[in-house]
């Protein structure tokens, strides 16, 4: 029931981000920032399931945690790729060598998110390297909690301490009332909800496949 509910609402809400609004590249706000919102939601779901696994020791929660994290990685990569394209046409200036692509790519926000994504890549490599199912579930659940503990410092706290070109230095980017006007906010929040539901829907699809695949191991 809950899965179907997600499917229907997710499918309907995904269309919302296509609504046209004022501004030109600022429209990317609904897409690029939305990806990071999805990534953070999915990683949060993943860590909650990991904690549930450690308290209940049921392999089902390990499948939940693993698939939430892998879908989160997908959205993290899309967010990174879209950010690279957007940055190349806003921060980088072809006529000024001091603002070339290679200099703006050294921004602390970019390096921080790259570290966060690499920590999660390590999570999957760790999973693959342990053949025993119970041991794999246990170790990766513990690692997942530590990875989540590193996620917010690397993507939010450290970039705010250092000087950065990326907006959102003094608060939550795109969520405070100063830099986003009211018409855009009307689109922005439904867009975030829509993307998040799409992400959760894709994750639940993967979870269902894996639950069928591992039927024999689940109590």
């Amino acid at each position, binding site marked *: 029931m809950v899965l179907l509910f997600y499917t229907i609402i997710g499918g309907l809400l995904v269309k919302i981000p296509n609504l046209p609004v004022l501004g*030109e*590249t600022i*429209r*990317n706000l609904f*897409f*690029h920032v939305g*990806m990071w919102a999805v990534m953070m939601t999915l990683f949060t779901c993943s860590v909650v399931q990991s904690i549930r696994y450690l308290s209940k020791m049921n392999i089902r929660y390990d499948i939940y945690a693993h698939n939430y994290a892998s879908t989160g990685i*997908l959205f993290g*990569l*899309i967010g*990174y*790729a*879209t950010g*690279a*394209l*957007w*940055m*190349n*046409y*806003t921060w980088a200036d*072809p006529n000024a060598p001091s603002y070339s*692509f290679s200099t703006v790519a050294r921004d602390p926000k970019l390096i921080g998110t790259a570290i966060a994504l690499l920590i999660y890549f390590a999570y999957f490599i760790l999973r693959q390297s342990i053949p025993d199912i119970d041991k794999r579930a246990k170790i990766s659940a513990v690692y997942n909690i530590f990875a989540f503990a590193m996620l917010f410092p690397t993507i939010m706290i450290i970039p705010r301490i250092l000087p950065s070109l990326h907006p959102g230095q003094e608060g939550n980017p795109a969520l405070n009332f100063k830099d986003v006007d009211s018409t855009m906010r009307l689109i922005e929040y439904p867009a975030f909800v829509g993307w998040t539901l*799409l992400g959760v829907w*894709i994750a639940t*699809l*993967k979870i269902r*496949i894996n639950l*069928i*695949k591992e039927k024999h191991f689940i109590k």
Partner: protein
Amino acid sequence: MKKYLIYILNLLLIPFFANAQGVDNLLRSNGRIYVVIGVILIIFISIILYLIRIERKIDKLEKQNH
């Protein structure tokens, strides 16, 4: 898996290929609206490819069951 890795690499290389002159002029025209279109395309293509990958897994499962 190898195909998937190549795809990820391609995604990360997009800004470097976009430096070609013609594409660059197009992306900078009309208030850089094509940057937004590029971003939407990246999201769309990535999600569709990911869903196709999931579908292949379902195919495998179906073959196992029958």
